[in-house]
C-alpha cells in the first residue's frame, strides 16, 4: 500500500513537473500512451474554437483536433484542449506542451522556416478585410485616409494593414485591443472608423454588434491569410498524420462521403470510397494507424463541408459563404491530394 502510494506520487510528479520525457521522438506513441491528444486552440474565437456554457469545445479549428484524435485514438472526444494566447502558441508547440496547434494560425514563410514548426495544410482560406458603419458613407477602403483602425493585437493583420495604407499613400491610427470582444466594443463605441481583421472574424464580430445591419464589410481583401494546423519539426510521421487527417476530411467531401452515409459507403461504395474508409488498401497502415482511421474521422467529426456548415456556415450564427473554402469541384480552393 505504502509503496503503491510512493509509486503513484512519483508518476504524478513525473508527469506534472518533468513531463513526457521525449518530445522529439514519436509524438504518436506519446499520444497513444496518454490516451488523449493535447491540442492547442484559441482562448475563444467564434466559429473556430469556442467553449459553450457546458464547457464543450466546438469550431472549425477544434474539428481538426477532433479529427486527429479520431484517426489516432478512434475517439474524437479524447482531446485535451489547451487554450493559448497568440504570443505563446509556438513556444507551447515547440516545447512539447501540446501535440499539435490548431489555432487560426496564418501560414507564412517566416513562421514555417524560422520557428521550428511545420504547417500541415490549410483548413480555412482567409484574408484581412474592413468593416465600417454604414452611416459613415464609405464604399471602398481607398476612402479611409486619416481614419482610426480597431485591430486585435498580436495578429498578422497588424502588419498587413500597415503595408496596405503605405502602399496607397494613406495614413491611419491603429487602436489595438487584446481580444476580439474588446475590438468589437471599441468599434461599436465609435473609437475607430473601421475594424480590420480576418474576413471570418469580421463576420463573427458583425453578428455580435447590437445592430448588425448598421455595419457593412468593404469589398477589398488586403491580404492572404491561409489558416491551418501546425506541428513541430522533426517528427515526420506525426506531420503526415495531421496532414492526412485534414486531407481525409476534404477528400470525403469531394467523394460525397458524410457522417450519415459513411457506414453504407464503407461496404457498398466505389473503390475510392472503400480505400478512404479502410475496407481496401493500406492507407492507414502506411501512416502507422488502424485501417479505419479515416472512417472514424468522417463518422465522428464529419467531412470538411459538414464541419464548415456546422461551425461557421449557414447552420451557424456566423452564416459565412463557402467562397474560397468551397471544394475545388465547386470553384473553391479546397483540394485534397489524391488518397491512393
Amino acid at each position: 500500500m505504502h509503496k503503491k502510494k510512493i509509486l503513484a506520487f512519483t508518476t504524478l510528479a513525473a508527469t506534472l513537473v518533468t513531463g513526457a520525457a521525449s518530445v522529439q521522438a514519436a509524438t504518436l506513441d506519446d499520444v497513444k500512451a496518454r490516451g488523449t491528444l493535447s491540442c492547442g486552440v484559441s482562448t475563444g474565437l467564434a466559429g473556430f474554437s469556442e467553449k459553450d456554457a457546458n464547457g464543450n469545445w466546438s469550431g472549425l479549428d477544434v474539428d481538426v483536433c477532433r479529427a486527429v484524435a479520431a484517426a489516432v485514438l478512434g475517439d474524437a472526444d479524447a482531446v485535451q484542449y489547451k487554450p493559448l494566447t497568440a504570443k505563446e502558441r509556438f513556444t507551447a508547440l515547440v516545447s512539447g506542451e501540446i501535440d499539435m496547434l490548431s489555432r487560426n494560425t496564418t501560414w507564412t514563410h517566416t513562421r514555417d522556416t524560422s520557428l521550428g514548426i511545420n504547417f500541415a495544410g490549410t483548413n480555412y482560406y482567409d484574408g484581412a478585410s474592413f468593416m465600417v458603419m454604414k452611416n459613415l458613407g464609405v464604399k471602398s477602403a481607398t476612402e479611409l485616409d486619416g481614419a482610426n483602425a480597431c485591430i486585435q493585437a498580436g495578429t498578422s493583420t497588424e502588419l498587413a494593414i500597415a503595408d496596405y495604407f503605405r502602399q496607397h499613400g494613406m495614413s491611419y491610427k491603429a487602436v489595438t485591443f487584446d481580444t476580439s470582444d474588446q475590438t468589437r466594443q471599441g468599434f461599436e463605441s465609435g473609437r475607430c472608423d473601421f475594424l480590420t481583421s480576418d474576413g471570418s472574424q469580421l463576420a463573427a464580430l458583425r453578428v455580435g454588434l447590437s445592430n448588425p445591419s448598421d455595419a457593412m464589410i468593404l469589398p477589398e481583401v488586403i491580404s492572404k491569410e491561409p489558416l491551418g494546423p501546425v506541428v513541430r519539426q522533426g517528427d515526420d510521421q506525426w506531420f503526415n498524420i495531421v496532414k492526412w487527417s485534414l486531407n481525409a476530411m476534404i477528400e470525403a467531401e469531394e467523394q460525397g462521403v458524410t457522417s450519415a452515409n459513411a457506414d453504407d459507403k464503407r461496404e457498398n461504395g466505389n473503390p475510392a470510397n472503400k480505400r478512404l474508409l479502410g475496407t481496401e488498401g493500406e492507407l492507414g497502415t502506411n501512416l502507422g494507424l488502424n485501417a479505419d482511421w479515416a472512417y472514424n474521422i468522417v463518422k465522428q467529426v464529419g467531412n470538411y463541408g459538414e464541419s464548415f456548415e456546422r461551425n461557421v456556415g449557414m447552420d451557424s450564427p456566423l452564416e459565412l459563404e463557402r467562397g474560397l473554402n468551397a471544394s475545388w469541384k465547386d470553384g473553391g480552393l479546397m483540394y485534397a491530394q489524391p488518397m491512393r
Partner: protein
Amino acid sequence: MREFQPVPARPAPVKTVGPVAWARANLFSSIPNSMMTLFVMALFVYFIPPIVDWAFLSANWTGTTEDACVRDGACWVFVKAWSYQFFYGTYPEEEVWRINLMLGLLVLVIAASFTLPKHIRLKASVAAWLLLPLVGIAVLDGRLLGLNQVTTDLWGGFTLNVFMAAASIIVAFPFSFLWALGRRSEMPFIRSVSIIFIEFFRGVPVLSLFFMGSVMLPLFFAEGTNVDKLIRVWIVLIFFMSGYMAEVFRGGFQAVPSGQYEAADSIGLSYWQKILLIILPQVIKVSMPNILATFVMLFKNTTFLLIIGIPEVVQTLQTALSNSYWLGGHALEGYLFVFLVFWSSCFSMSLLARRIERQMNTDKRG
C-alpha cells in the same frame, strides 16, 4: 438690603438630539458643508434609479439561452447559464465535490489556526498549512488518491483564482522566511543575494513575471522536458510572493524587541531553536495583518493571468463573451458579477485583517 434679583433664564439649548439636530451638526454645519452634502445627494439621486431599473426592475431573470433576454434591462440569464464555468471552469460536474472539499478544507484550516487550543495551535496549524497544497494537488488531480484524473486544462474559474493565490502564498511562506533571515544575516554574500532576490521580485511588474512563466520558462528546462503551464505560473507566483512576504517578515523581525533575542541567547538556545521557537511565533503574530493584505493583493493580481490565457474567472468571462451563441454583448452583466464576487471576498478579508489588528492592539495594552 437689596432685593433678590434672579439672573434671567438662559434660552433653551439648541436641540442636540433627534434627526434634525443630527443633520444640522453632521450635514449642514456650515455653508460649504451644506453645499457638499447637497452635491453628494444629487449624485446619488441622479445615478441610483437608472441603475436599479436596469439591474432589477427591467432585468431578465428566467431562461437558459440568449433568446430569453427580451427586456431592456440586464440579461442575468447569461450569468446564470455560465455560472458553473465562472466558478469551476470546465472541471467535470460529477467531480466538483473535490473543489468544494478543498474550499471547505481551506476554510477549516483558516478557522483552526485561530481557534485551536493554544498549546497545540502553532504546531498543528503550521503542519496543516504546509500539507494543504500537497493535499490540494492530490485531490484536484486525483491520480494519487485513485480517483479519476482531472487534467489541469480543465481547472478554471473563480476557484482557480482562489487556489492559485492560496497555493502560492502557502508555499512561499517558508522561502520568504529564509529570504528575510538572509537579509538580516551578517554573512555578506548571503545578505547580498537575499537583497537582490527580494528587490528583483518586488521591483518588476507581476505581468512580466507571468510572461516569463508562459514564454520564457519553457526554455529554462532541459531539452525534452516540459512543465505544465499552470505549474510554471505557480512557480513564478511563488517566487514573486516570497519576495513580497520576505519584506513583510522583515518588518515582523524588526518589531520583535531585541530583548527577546538576548533572552533566547542567554538561556543557551541554538540559532535555529532561537529563531523557530522564540522569534518566529512572535513574527507571525505581528505580521498577520500585513500577510493578509499581501494575500489580498496577490488574489486581485491573479486576474492578470487572463493576459497569458489561463482560464481564471475573467478569462472565462471573455471566452463566454466570444461564444457565437451569446454574441449579444453581455459584458456589463458579466463584469458586474465578477466585480461583486471579488469585492465581497476582498472586503471580508480586509475586515478580518482589521479585526486581527485590533485584537493585537488590545494584547499589547494588557
